[in-house]
C-alpha cells in the first residue's frame, strides 16, 4: 500500500529515505524535544519564572543591544560589498570576493585575537605605536568583532538575493525618469528586502548566541550566551542555562521564518545571476560604499597580519622578535592531536552530511509528499538555532538511556552533521530543482532500478552541489565552536575548542598558531575543491 505516495516498505525506500528520515528525527527532533521537556515540561511554570526572575535584566538588555548593533553594522557593510560585487564586476571585485571567502573559512575568534594583539592593553598599535592607555574590553569590542566576523556570510546571502533581481525593472525605472539613487531605493531595495531580512535575522541569532567573543573581550559586559555557557561549564547548572538559551531561541524562530521564505523564493526573468549586470554604481551609494569597503578591507588585512606575526614572534616595545616557540609547542603531541582529530571529524562530517543531504533532497524534490516536507522543516532547523542551544540539546538528549553518547567522539560528529544538514540539502535541492523530473522516469523506463537511476543519473548531475555541500560541512566543522564545546570530552579535544581555551587563558601565541593552521587546512581543501569544481564545469561546457 503506498502511504502518502511512497511505498515505505520497499527495501530501496527503507535504505534511501526511511533510514535518513529516522536519523533526522533522532538527532534533530529528539534532542530539541529533550531540551524543551527539561526546560519547560518537568518544572512548573512557577519554577521557570523563578529562574527567569533571577536572571539580571541587564543581561537580556545587553544581549539585545549587542545583537542589534552588530547586525546593523554588519548589514550596512555587507550591502555595500554586495553592491560592489554585483555591479562592478572586474579585477578588484574578484579579489574582494576571494578575500571574503578567506574570512568565511577562518575560525571564529581570529578577529578577537587580532584585536587584542593590535588594540589591547599591550597592543601593537595602541600601546607600542601610540602609547595610549585605554580599555579595549567592553561592548565596543564585542560589536566590532562580531561585525567583522559576520560581514562575509551576510554579504554572500545578500548577494544571492541581489542576483535574483530582474534588472530590466531598474532600467524601466530609469527610463521613466527615476535617478540612480531613486531607482536603487524604490526598485532594487524592495526587491531584495526579504533577502536582507533573512540575512539580518540569521546574523542576529549568531551574534546573540556567540558566547566566545564576550568572554574574550567583553570584560564586565555580560550577555545571556556567555552566562549560559558559564553556568553549564562552570557550575553545571543546566536548568538556568536552559532558560537563558530558550530566550535566545525566540528570535531564531523569526530567523527561521525569513530564511525559509527567502529559500523558497524561486524567481525567473531577466535575472542578474545569469549575466553580467549592465547597472553601474553611481553617486552617494558608490562613494559611501567604497569608503566602507576600503575601511573594512584595511582592518581585515591588519587582522591577518597580526595573526601571522603573533604566531611567529613576540612583540616587545622595541619591535618584534621572531621565533618558532609557538610553532614548536603546537607540534607537541598534546596540542597536535586535537588538530588532526579536527581534520578527521571534518572529513567524516562532510561525507555523511553530503550523502544524507543528497538522499533527503532527492525525496523532497522528486517525491514531494507531506512527510518529506516535515523532514525538510526539521532539517533546516539546527542551522538557524543558536549553537549553544543545539549543543545543550545533545547533552540533554544523549546523557541517558536509551542512547547514551556523552563523552564519545560520535556525539561531536553527529552534532556537526545535523547542524549542517540543512545547508547540504539546500545545495542539492537548488540543482535538483533544475533537473527535469521525467529524467528519472526515463532511466527507469529503460530498465534501471530506483537505486541505479538515483546513483547513475541523478547523482552525477548533482556533482557540483555535492562538492559544495562537502566543502561547507568540512569548513564548518573545522571552524565551529558554539555547539560542540559542551560535547567535547577531555580525551577527544578538537582544534577550535583548544584555540578558544588558549585565548581564554591568555596564550595568544599558541591561539594564533591554531588559527593559522586551521586557516591553512580549510584554505587548502577549499582551493582543491574550487579546482575540481572548475574542471567539472569546464567539462560540462565542453560537452555542451
Amino acid at each position, binding site marked *: 500500500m503506498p502511504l502518502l505516495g511512497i511505498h515505505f516498505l520497499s527495501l530501496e525506500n527503507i535504505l534511501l529515505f526511511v533510514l535518513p528520515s529516522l536519523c533526522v528525527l533522532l538527532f534533530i527532533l529528539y534532542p530539541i524535544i529533550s531540551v524543551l521537556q527539561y526546560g519547560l515540561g518537568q518544572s512548573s511554570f512557577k519554577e521557570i519564572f523563578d529562574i527567569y526572575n533571577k536572571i539580571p535584566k541587564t543581561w537580556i538588555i545587553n544581549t539585545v543591544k549587542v545583537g542589534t548593533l552588530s547586525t546593523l553594522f554588519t548589514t550596512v557593510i555587507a550591502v555595500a560589498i554586495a553592491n560592489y560585487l554585483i555591479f562592478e564586476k572586474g579585477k578588484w571585485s574578484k579579489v574582494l570576493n576571494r578575500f571574503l571567502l578567506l574570512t568565511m573559512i577562518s575560525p571564529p575568534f581570529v578577529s578577537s585575537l587580532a584585536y587584542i594583539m593590535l588594540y589591547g592593553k599591550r597592543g601593537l598599535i595602541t600601546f607600542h605605536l601610540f602609547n595610549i592607555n585605554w580599555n579595549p574590553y567592553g561592548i565596543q569590542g564585542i560589536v566590532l568583532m562580531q561585525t567583522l566576523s559576520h560581514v562575509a556570510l551576510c554579504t554572500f546571502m545578500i548577494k544571492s538575493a541581489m542576483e535574483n533581481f530582474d534588472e*530590466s525593472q531598474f532600467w*524601466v525605472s530609469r527610463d521613466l525618469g527615476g535617478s540612480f539613487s531613486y531607482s536603487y531605493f524604490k526598485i532594487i531595495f524592495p526587491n531584495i528586502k526579504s533577502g536582507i531580512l533573512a540575512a539580518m535575522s540569521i546574523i542576529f541569532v549568531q551574534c546573540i548566541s556567540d558566547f566566545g567573543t564576550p568572554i574574550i573581550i567583553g570584560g564586565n559586559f555580560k550577555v545571556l550566551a556567555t552566562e549560559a555557557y558559564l553556568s553549564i561549564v562552570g557550575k553545571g547548572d543546566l536548568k538556568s542555562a536552559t532558560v537563558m538559551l530558550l530566550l535566545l531561541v525566540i528570535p531564531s524562530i523569526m530567523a527561521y521564518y525569513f530564511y525559509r521564505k527567502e529559500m523558497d523564493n524561486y524567481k525567473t526573468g531577466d535575472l542578474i545571476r545569469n549575466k553580467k549586470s549592465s547597472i553601474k554604481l553611481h553617486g552617494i551609494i558608490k562613494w559611501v560604499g567604497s569608503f566602507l569597503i576600503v575601511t573594512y578591507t584595511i582592518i581585515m588585512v591588519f587582522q591577518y597580519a597580526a595573526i601571522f606575526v603573533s604566531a611567529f614572534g613576540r612583540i616587545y616595545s622595541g619591535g618584534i622578535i621572531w621565533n618558532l616557540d609557538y610553532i614548536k609547542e603546537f607540534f607537541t603531541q598534546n596540542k597536535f592531536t586535537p588538530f588532526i582529530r579536527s581534520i578527521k571529524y571534518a572529513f567524516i562530517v562532510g561525507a555523511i552530511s553530503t550523502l544524507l543531504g543528497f538522499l533527503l533532497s532527492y525525496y523532497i524534490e522528486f517525491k514531494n509528499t507531506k512527510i518529506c516536507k516535515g523532514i525538510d522543516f526539521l532539517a533546516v532547523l539546527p542551522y538557524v538555532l543558536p549553537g549553544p542551544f543545539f549543543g545543550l540539546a545533545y547533552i540533554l538528549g544523549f546523557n541517558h538511556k536509551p542512547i547514551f553518547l556523552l563523552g564519545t567522539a560520535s556525539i561531536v560528529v553527529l552534532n556537526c552533521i545535523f547542524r549542517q544538514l540543512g545547508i547540504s540539502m539546500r545545495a542539492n535541492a537548488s540543482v535538483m530543482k533544475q533537473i527535469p523530473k521525467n529524467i528519472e522516469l526515463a532511466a527507469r523506463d529503460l530498465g534501471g532500478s530506483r537505486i541505479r537511476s538515483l546513483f547513475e543519473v541523478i547523482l552525477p548531475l548533482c556533482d557540483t552541489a555535492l562538492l559544495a555541500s562537502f566543502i561547507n560541512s568540512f569548513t564548518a566543522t573545522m571552524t565551529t565552536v558554539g555547539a560542540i564545546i559542551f560535547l567535547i570530552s577531555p580525551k577527544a579535544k578538537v582544534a577550535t575548542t583548544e584555540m578558544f581555551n588558549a585565548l581564554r587563558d591568555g596564550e595568544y601565541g599558541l591561539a594564533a598558531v591554531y588559527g593559522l593552521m586551521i586557516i591553512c587546512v580549510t584554505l587548502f581543501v577549499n582551493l582543491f575543491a574550487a579546482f575540481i569544481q572548475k574542471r567539472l564545469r569546464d567539462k560540462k561546457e565542453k560537452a555542451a
Partner: protein
Amino acid sequence: MFVRIDKLNKEFDKKEILKGIDFEIEKGQWFTLLGPSGCGKTTTLNIIAGFINETSGNVYIDGNVINEKPPEKRPTATVFQNYALFPHMNVKQNISYGLKFKKEVKKKDYKEKIEKVLKVVNLEGFENREINTLSGGQKQRVALARALVTEPKLLLLDEPFSNLDAKLRQKMRKEVKQIQQKLGITTLFVTHDREEALSLSDKIGVMKEGIIHQIDTPKQLYDNPKDGFIAKFIGNCNVFLKNNKKYYARPENIEIADKGGEKAVLIQKNYMGKKTQLEVKMTYGTILIDVDSIKCDKYNIGDTINVFLHEKSIS
C-alpha cells in the same frame, strides 16, 4: 527627420557588436529592427534608451542629440520582453511611477490620466490589482500603459510579444498596432519574428552581425530583397546558382505546367493542409515548390514534372 540614428558603433570586450548603424524614423511611423538573435538589434535599442553607452555615433530625437543624457532624461519609454513590472507595486502604482518625475503633471490629474491610459489598453477598472494576479496579456497591457502614460516621443518595444502563446500573440499584436495608430506614437520595435515584422511595420531594417542590410517597406523587402540573406530571412526562399549567377525564387511563385519550362524530378511531398510542399531535384540542387493541395494528387514521387521558376537575380 523625427528620429535619426547616426553611425552607431558599439564595442564590447574588443568585439564589434554594432558597425555603423544608420536609420531614420518619421514621426508617427512604426519602424522595426528585424534580425536573428545576436545581431545587435537589442543593443541598438538599449543604446537609444540609454541603458548602455555607445562607443561612437549619435542619436537624435526631435532635433536634439540625446545620447549624452542618462536614461531618465531621455524622451523614450521601453516595454520589455518580460514586461519588468514592479512586483511590489499594484497596477496604479506601476503606471503612475513615471508621472512622478514629470513636474508639469499635477498630482490631482494622476487619477484621470491613469483611467484614460487603462481605457486605451482595455484594462478599465484594474487600478488596484496586484501584479501577480494578472495574466500574461494583462501584464503586457500594464507595461504598455506604464510607458504610454509618460507620453514619450519614441516608444521602444523589445520583443514584447515573444512571451505570449500563439493565439494571444496574434490578439496583442493587433491591439498594440491599433493603439499605436490611434495615438500616432513613433515606435521602434525589435523582433526576430518575420511575420510580426511584416504585418506590423511601416518600415523594416533587417540586421545581421551588427549591420543593417536593407531598410524598406515590408512589401519591397519581400518582393525585392537586396541579397540572399534577406530573401531567405524574410520568407521561404530557394536561392541557387545558374550560369554562375545567384538567383532566388519564392516557393509560392513557382509554376508547374504540362509542357515547357525546365525538367524536375519529384522526390518528396509534404502535405501541410491547404498547401502541399513539393521537393524537386533540378540541376541547381533541391528546390521547394508550394502548390495548392487539391492540384497535386496527380504528381507521384519519382515523376518528372515541368516547372517555371520565375527566378530573379540577386546579389
